[in-house]
């Protein structure tokens, strides 16, 4: 009996492998989850986008639940998510801050003038150092931060209405109501 079962071993190994590969089809190998989830947001002090002389720091954001959106004018996917950001800002459910990443200031200002500005305020990260501290590896990326300044979620890639309704808004509700 066991002698015959032995010959089923290759089949069993293959079936395990096939299961793994099937699972792999629905995973994105390029998506790297942030190790910062559950950790306090990295400190930064940067000039404001709209006002080069004023600065904005992590302390200014702390205190309530907010989103930090990493964007740039050279990023085509950022253009795609911009309308979603505007819609989200209009609901007034959450404060949206921006980190303008490795961009040219005039370009970024024009972008907001022409397309509309969903952000409460924008930090201007010209050399991308702050981006590195936040583990940014491509725009757009969006962080959800709770009222204690802890990073709760990171969405990589453009926000869509579906992502906002499925992942972002429910999380914000929990963070706002529950004792985190």
């Amino acid at each position, binding site marked *: 009996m066991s002698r015959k079962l032995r010959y089923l071993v290759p089949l069993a190994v293959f079936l395990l492998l096939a299961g793994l590969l099937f699972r792999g089809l629905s995973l994105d190998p390029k998506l*790297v*989850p*942030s*190790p*910062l989830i559950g950790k306090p947001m990295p400190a930064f002090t940067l000039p404001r986008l709209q006002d080069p002389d004023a600065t904005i720091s992590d302390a200014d954001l702390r205190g309530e639940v907010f989103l930090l959106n990493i964007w740039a004018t050279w990023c085509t996917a950022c253009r795609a998510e911009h309308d979603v950001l505007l819609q989200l800002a209009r609901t007034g459910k959450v404060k949206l801050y921006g980190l303008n990443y*490795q961009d040219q200031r005039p370009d970024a200002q024009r972008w907001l003038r022409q397309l509309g500005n969903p952000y409460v305020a924008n930090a201007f990260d010209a*050399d*991308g*150092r702050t*981006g*590195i*501290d*936040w*583990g940014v*590896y*491509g725009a757009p990326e969006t962080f959800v931060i709770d009222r204690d300044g802890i990073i709760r979620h990171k969405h990589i890639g453009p926000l869509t209405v579906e992502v906002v309704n499925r992942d972002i808004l429910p999380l914000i509700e929990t963070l706002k109501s529950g004792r985190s």
Partner: protein
Amino acid sequence: MSTVKTILLAVLLTLSVSVFAAATLEAFKFTSAADEQHFKELIVELRCLVCQNQSLLDSDAELAHDLRVEVYDMLQAGQADTEIIDFLVARYGDFVLYSPPVKPSTYLLWFGPFVLLAVALVLLVFALRRQRHATDQKPITDMDRQQLDRILGKRGNRTDRES
């Protein structure tokens, strides 16, 4: 026009997967050749996150450039390799390391091959022992031999001359 655009877009999407050019290292200044070597050995084991499986040494992506500068600055500031690696892992996770750290979650990776080898050796020993106790089967049956001779049209000299 829009078709051309669509096609170009399709091409771009295809090619963002496959095209890359070699990186050109910024003209970093090093005090010694050993320092330069050390820098390269460090960054070749770090993965460029936005690229398709390229190291920081080989990639000319924007982020790779920034991270090279970061690593260079940290080295110049006298920081140890482990500090630099910890810095990157804290931001990007173990994904940046081409050589995954040895820790319980990677035991499978680091020790799996040896477990496999051990299992294989045990099987080999069993196979050889069984072989020794095998009944005296003829290696080739007469029927096989006849059929083979007929098919291959072989004549007398049937053993191959390999020693």
